[in-house]
């Protein structure tokens, strides 16, 4: 297939070509979908090189599965399933989550605002890293990737009700964990969270 054709081909055609051993078609698929895979992996794992490792594994498995691929399931959903499972597997076996230290503040006219924004991002990342894996993945998929509760439930192999509950607990924990970051004054005027007694 010519490069122009590869860029215009739909996923099913590229997968069929990949299934016959077509490396150019496979490279086109990787370039088309790598960002989505990396986004989930990075937001869940919090580390760029780990995310790249997982994404590489996802595409190697895709290559292996290509001859048996049936286009009744859209490729992005297939890749998302692989990514979620590999991320959860990796977290199950590996060291604790790390913070997202790759996030450099972009150059700006207002360095103070940038520092504030960077601190907020770091605080969010830190609060996320303290969540249990399933809760964290649910937050990444629902709030950052924009999936529905049903899709989150399918990916986490649970019921929609259980997924709602995971999300609810995660949001509660994040609210507690983020403390003053969520106050209108921002991180510079920090108070230790919410203190009035629960009735």
């Amino acid at each position: 297939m010519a490069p122009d054709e590869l860029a215009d081909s739909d996923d099913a055609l590229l997968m069929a070509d990949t299934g016959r051993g077509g490396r150019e078609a496979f490279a086109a698929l990787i370039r088309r979908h790598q960002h989505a895979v990396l986004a989930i992996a990075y937001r869940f794992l919090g580390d760029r090189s780990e995310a790249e490792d997982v994404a590489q594994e996802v595409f190697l498995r895709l290559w292996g599965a290509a001859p048996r691929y049936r286009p009744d399931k859209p490729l992005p959903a297939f890749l998302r399933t692989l990514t979620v499972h590999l991320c959860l597997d990796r977290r199950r076996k590996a060291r604790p989550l790390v913070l997202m230290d790759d996030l450099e503040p972009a150059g700006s006219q207002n360095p103070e605002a940038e520092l504030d924004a960077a601190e907020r991002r770091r605080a969010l990342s830190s609060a996320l890293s303290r969540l249990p894996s399933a809760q964290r993945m649910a937050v990444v998929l629902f709030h950052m990737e924009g999936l529905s509760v049903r899709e989150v439930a399918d990916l986490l192999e649970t019921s929609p009700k259980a997924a709602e509950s995971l999300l609810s607990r995660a949001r509660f924990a994040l609210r507690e964990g983020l403390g003053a970051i969520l106050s209108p004054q921002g991180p510079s005027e920090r108070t230790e969270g919410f203190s009035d007694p629960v009735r």
Partner: protein
Amino acid sequence: MRCRAARKRISALGGPIDRALEPALSDHLSSCPGCAEEYRRHRALLARLADGMPLPPFRDLAPSVLAALPVRRFAWDNAWRWGVAAALVLGALSVGYLMGGHWFSISPAPSPGGMAFTYQEALSGLPSGSVEIAYVSMVSPASNPGETR
């Protein structure tokens, strides 16, 4: 509604935040500054999450993935064809063996006087265009009475 229940409800709010709150929660928020603050913080959290987390620049994965692929992949979906081909060849050989085991026997080397005619002579009698390989050996005591042991 009590605060504990109200905060549980607040945590469950995950979608479009401006949708109407249930009346019981709404009443509670208007009379409880602590839960109202919790609700405001919840909205701030949702906004923060919706902003997402900026992604760092990633390298292009295609070269490293392609380099990690196995050199040659066996096409399992075509494996049955190889199996059928192998079975046909084996079947043909078996039938040939059963019909005339001598096809597989190694004939003794012909004596100088035993060769009745050459391959060219043997093949010249075949119709033109046919593809045949003929191996003709006329070595036998009956057909070669002059041979001495």
